[in-house]
């Protein structure tokens, strides 16, 4: 398996810049979270990587090969998204056979087992399913297709809590049996937090985070206490969000706290989870009262 390199991808729609010289690397057999607010360009990015749409500038490389119009490279990618790419009468079993013909070695056994778990039959017509069951059916294909880079764009769309748990379980199971790269783009950040190894955050067309989750969260803090003490303690740090209530000030920072900083008794320092870290980084300087 080779590395997937996204190199300075720029995408414009009219005069609006959706992706601004976006660059990052995906390694084999890792689970990535691709996070971003609505309209941040996640789906566009995934569509560009899988060659469904063209970028204005930049390239996507798999190893040394450019992915554009390259069957050998594209044959290692699979993108699951909301887009309806099938004709109306398509049945779930047609999705399976399509995947088998295109990629080979489709895991029919596991796929059928997953369908049973989701309580859908492979003879059902895709278009007649509810949003949630449609997603479940597409997930079943995505988790059993023989590709090394699986991109999941909003894989939890419409899934109820039980099905979401089932999805996470099946993901870990198939990842354990056959390690390959998964890129999960979702809004349910806290639910997927523990599934991810690395996280990439897209904000206003640029990559603002590209590192292991452990490293990011190791430097994500919420500091609260009397305003003056908090200001003193966080002097020189980049404050992401700031919130005042009574005389207590709460700020979030995402950077290493130097060991030498003495922590006054009344100031509390807590760790942030991935969702709070994400909202702090992408809030764009929200000031709260």
């Amino acid at each position, binding site marked *: 398996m080779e590395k997937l390199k996204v190199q300075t991808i720029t995408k414009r729609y009219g005069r609006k810049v959706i992706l601004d010289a976006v660059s990052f690397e995906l390694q084999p057999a890792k689970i990535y979270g691709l996070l971003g607010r609505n309209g941040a360009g996640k789906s566009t990015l995934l569509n560009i990587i899988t060659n*469904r*749409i063209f970028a204005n500038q930049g390239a996507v490389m798999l190893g040394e090969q450019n992915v554009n119009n390259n*069957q050998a490279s*594209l*044959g290692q*990618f699979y993108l699951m998204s909301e887009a309806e790419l*099938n*004709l109306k009468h398509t049945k779930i079993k047609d999705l399976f056979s399509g995947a088998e*013909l295109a990629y080979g070695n489709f895991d029919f056994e596991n796929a059928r087992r997953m369908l049973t778990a989701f309580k859908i039959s492979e003879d059902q017509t895709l278009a007649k399913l509810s949003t949630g069951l449609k997603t479940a059916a597409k997930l079943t294909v995505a988790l059993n297709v023989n590709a090394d880079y699986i991109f999941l764009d909003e894989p939890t769309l419409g899934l109820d809590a039980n099905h979401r748990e089932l999805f996470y379980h099946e993901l870990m199971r198939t990842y354990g049996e056959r390690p390959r790269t998964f890129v999960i783009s979702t809004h349910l950040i806290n639910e997927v937090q523990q599934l991810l190894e690395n996280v990439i955050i897209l904000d206003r067309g640029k990559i603002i985070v590209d590192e292991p989750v452990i490293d990011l969260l190791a430097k994500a803090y919420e500091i609260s206490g009397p305003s003056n003490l908090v200001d003193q303690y966080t002097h020189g740090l980049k404050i992401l969000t700031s919130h005042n209530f009574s005389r207590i000030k709460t700020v979030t920072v995402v950077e290493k706290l130097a060991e030498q900083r003495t922590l006054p008794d009344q100031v509390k320092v807590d760790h942030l989870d991935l969702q709070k870290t994400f909202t702090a980084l992408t809030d764009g300087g929200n000031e709260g009262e």
Partner: protein
Amino acid sequence: MNKRISGLMNWIMRLSVWSLLIVFGVNLVFWALRIILKLLTRSHMSLTGELTNFVVNFGISIEIWGVILPLFIAYPLFKWGIQYGYSRWNIWLANTASLVIWIVVIWLAHLLKNVVDYQQMGLHHATDGLGWDLVAVIEGVLTLAAIGAGFALLNRRWKWIIGIGGPVLAFFILGSLIRLIFVTFDSQSLANFFAVLSFNWMGVLYGFLFIWACLMFGLIYLFFMRMQLRRD
């Protein structure tokens, strides 16, 4: 043939056969209704007459099938293909292979229609003009496929603009061009020009048809290479 495109060919052929069967079925139903009506009104019927009638009607339906398929299949094929990581090259290749198959099917239908038609007039006429028939089918299918692929690149708004504005513009340009020719060249040089043309009329025709086919083929390739998943 590339093993790689077997999935695409599978999808296209299943769609082609299904649509053909539907066309066949509709024909059968209307033909059966006609038979029943004839039986009820005790009209004159003959086996060969009715069979001929069926084949002729089916032949017309195949024309319609042969127009609709290349015209509308480009974008659905593209969408299905990109879903499974097929490259544009392979999608185009499968499309091209299908065009060949459809051309042959349509032409064979014409042959059958001719055989049945001319049965009453003598078999040796059946094969008249079959070569030209094939040329006509090829030109027709390629042109429709090019239009279909071109429209796959346009969003809804532009489809209307080109769809209505395009033919209007084409007529306007053609008309202006003709008028321009008759204005700039005097009758003598025009007469000479047409004389030369008619001297080698067949050559000119062959040339034009060949160039047109190549142009359409090239456009189909170009359009498939620039196709993208649309947002509308």
